[in-house]
């Protein structure tokens, strides 16, 4: 089979259309560059009625919202979850990694939680702070101007609180707390745990005339048809196209490798079309990887050549290393004071928490080095498959008779509706060289491309952090007069989610000043190949007790500015 080569030479090829790829597309196309975006999944527009799940009722589907084909429920707007048909991955025996992939334009930004937190000054200097891991080659002051611009371009609600490591920004006003959130505030404050308004990228107020304003259906996970939440397609790629940018979308196109010339410089990419199962080549002056931390590492490792026998950009042998996800442990409380809710009002709110707790701990008094924040859920939400299951658990807690049937079931359902509060502790695990992904030479996907094999174990510090989360949730629950449900103990690692399950994987192509100990420089540029950049979360040196998307967006914008400047100066 002959590989089909396109004669056109793009200025930039961007691989992946999620947060990092979307931002690079917007910035580079706005600067007048000729851009090709190569996405492994099909086209997706949240406004397309055929694929839309927003505002559906459970009875619109015969399975009433069950998660049979979508792990987070059938309304979740992610095409692909822990498994993608025809695209396996493997794990080293005795280790675990769960890898979420969304095969669609906009990628995982179509369903994510929109929790949009800046990293703080301390988060860029982990080693200086506590001796663990490595410092970033940049600091908060380098990223701040880009965070500011991201806030204004995309829109995020929140409040300026003047907290040292949770920087202020340019916020839209937050929504008022829901009833269960008022209980949470009371419970947390009693233990001296701070609670502030949530910081999520939904438009509680108009930011331009192109995007709509939130209409409070609580369904951002379904992707917003009026573009009132941030998704990379609707908020970055479409606007780049509409303002006349030269953006060519290649969808259903699975990148196999970055091609290089005799000098070892990148010349473009080769990809397999999922439509006709043939291999194609695209040429460009610059290649930007934004395929997600692990997918970009996979492409680099699969891009072997005479000049780069170890894979592209891998002279340090660090591509795939330092893979780390956020830590996570979750819990739920049954709150008797929240029983027998008044259902006369709609409390869907935005698709996520109106309040949260940023990290508050003092590490000199703790047995783990890094922190976490607490996310809160609950309320009178839309019933879907699973609603009303196992009411007897609550009957038992309340000392009511269990079992039975008849009219009493109606009373039970209404008594307990909205009486549960959930907690999500999401924190920082340490970046360790021993946790990595590599190419599994024994296995290929349906497109013939060698797949990733994962090797990831938590260390004791993450387990101890999870224990702290559980103890904290329990204490807050008691402060609320609630009953903490199913507290996991040591035998279950205190509920610590498996690596990957928080879907914040970062670190596989970390940045640094020294080419021996890092893969990219501080502008997300490969040390080894100056016309290849990585703008997903691969270059992260460390996670923070924050979600990674806002920092991906800021760093992608910063890298894009650098690319534009370097092209202008004819350096690349």
């Amino acid at each position: 089979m002959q590989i089909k080569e396109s004669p056109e030479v793009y200025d930039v090829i961007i691989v992946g259309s999620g947060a990092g790829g979307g931002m690079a597309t917007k910035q580079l196309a706005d600067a007048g560059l000729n851009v090709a975006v190569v996405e492994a999944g099909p086209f997706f527009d949240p406004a397309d009625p055929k694929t839309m799940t927003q505002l559906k009722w459970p009875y619109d589907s015969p399975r009433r919202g069950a998660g049979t084909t979508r792990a987070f429920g059938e309304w979740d707007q992610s095409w692909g979850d822990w498994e993608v048909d025809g695209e396996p991955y493997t794990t080293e025996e005795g280790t675990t990694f769960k890898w979420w992939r969304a095969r669609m334009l906009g990628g995982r930004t179509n369903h994510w939680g929109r929790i949009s937190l800046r990293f703080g000054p301390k988060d860029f200097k982990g080693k200086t702070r506590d001796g663990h891991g490595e410092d970033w080659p940049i600091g908060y002051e380098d990223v701040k101007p880009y965070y500011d611009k991201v806030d204004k371009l995309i829109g995020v609600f929140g409040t300026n609180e003047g907290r040292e490591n949770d920087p202020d920004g340019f916020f839209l006003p937050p929504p008022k707390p829901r009833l269960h959130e008022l209980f949470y505030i009371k419970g947390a404050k009693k233990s001296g745990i701070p609670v502030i308004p949530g910081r999520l990228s939904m438009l509680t107020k108009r930011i331009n005339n192109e995007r709509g304003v939130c209409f409070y259906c609580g369904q951002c996970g379904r992707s917003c048809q009026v573009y009132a939440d941030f998704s990379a397609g609707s908020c970055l790629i479409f606007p780049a196209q509409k303002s006349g940018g030269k953006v060519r979308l290649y969808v259903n196109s699975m990148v196999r490798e970055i091609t290089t010339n005799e000098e070892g410089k990148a010349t473009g990419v080769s990809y397999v079309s999922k439509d006709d199962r043939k291999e194609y080549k695209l040429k460009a002056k610059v290649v930007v990887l934004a395929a997600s931390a692990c997918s970009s590492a996979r492409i680099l490792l699969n891009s072997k050549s005479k000049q780069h026998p170890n894979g592209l950009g891998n002279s340090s042998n660090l591509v795939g290393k330092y893979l780390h996800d956020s830590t996570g442990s979750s819990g739920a409380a049954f709150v008797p004071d929240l029983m027998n809710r008044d259902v006369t009002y709609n409390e869907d709110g935005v698709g996520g928490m109106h309040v949260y707790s940023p990290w508050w701990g003092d590490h000199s008094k703790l047995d783990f080095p890094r922190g976490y924040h607490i996310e809160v859920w609950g309320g009178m939400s839309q019933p879907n498959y699973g609603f009303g299951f196992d009411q007897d658990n609550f009957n038992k807690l309340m000392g009511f008779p269990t079992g039975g049937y008849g009219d009493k079931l109606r009373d039970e359902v209404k008594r307990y509706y909205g009486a549960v509060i959930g907690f999500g502790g999401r924190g920082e695990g340490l970046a360790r060289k021993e946790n990595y992904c590599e190419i599994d030479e024994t296995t290929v996907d349906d497109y013939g491309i060698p797949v990733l094999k994962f090797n990831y174990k938590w260390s004791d510090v993450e387990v101890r952090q999870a224990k702290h989360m559980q103890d904290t949730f329990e204490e807050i629950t008691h402060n609320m007069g609630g009953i903490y449900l199913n507290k996991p103990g040591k035998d279950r690692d205190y509920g610590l989610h498996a690596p990957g399950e928080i879907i914040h994987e970062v670190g596989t192509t970390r940045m640094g000043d020294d080419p021996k100990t890092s893969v990219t420089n501080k502008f997300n540029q490969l040390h080894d190949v100056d016309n290849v950049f990585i703008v997903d979360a691969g270059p992260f040196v460390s996670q923070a007790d924050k979600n990674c998307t806002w920092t991906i967006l800021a760093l992608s914008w910063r890298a894009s500015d650098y690319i534009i400047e370097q092209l202008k100066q004819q350096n690349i």
Partner: protein
Amino acid sequence: MMDRRKSIQTMILGASASAFAFHSCKTDKGEAAPVEGETAVSTDTKYYGRTPAEAERDAKLKEEQLFNEHEMETIAVLSEVILPPKEPHGGPLEADVPEFIEFIGKDMPQMQNTLLGGLMWLDHKSNTDYGLEFKSASLDQQKEILDQICIQDMEVPLDDQPLQIQFFALMKNLVVTGYYTSKVGIADLGYKGNQPNVWDGVPDDVLKKHGVEYDPEWIAKCVDNSKRNVIAEWDEDGNLLT
């Protein structure tokens, strides 16, 4: 820009009577009418958001038959004993619970043995005790049977309990979830969401009922919905000006 949006709104409103925009302030009935400045919202009911592969899978499942006519009738009778219909929001039959259970049994084949075996157990038990199939027994006889299987041991995992106990627990869950995810069930529950609206906090009487209140300092930072369509502008320190 305002004109463009208005014309889109008109277009959508003209195309379908069920399409609507929404109020920027609350109405008593929650009824919606187009309002200047708001973006129209689709309420299409032709699709439920499946990818082509998912749509194909669902179409295939719908063609398959899990339960025969007698079993479907038994499920219908059983579901109404578990959750009796009640005015004004009906019961499992108005909520299409038997059809839902049939689909779920095909969608989640791991349930099939419990469901099919449990239905057989029900008829066997009813035939043995009353010489009648379960669906033809009197309500009192049906209840007498169910009373023997409706209480599970809360200290023992359900999987370790007899099939008939597992069957009843599963049926009860499916009947309750099937009813409360239906149009009539949602009306019975009183859930008011899943429609365009503007969130402006918990009503005062509800706050009082649950013994909590808003902190005025917190609320002062929250969104002023009367200005939601005014484009945001900030000073250089991040203070919102509009």
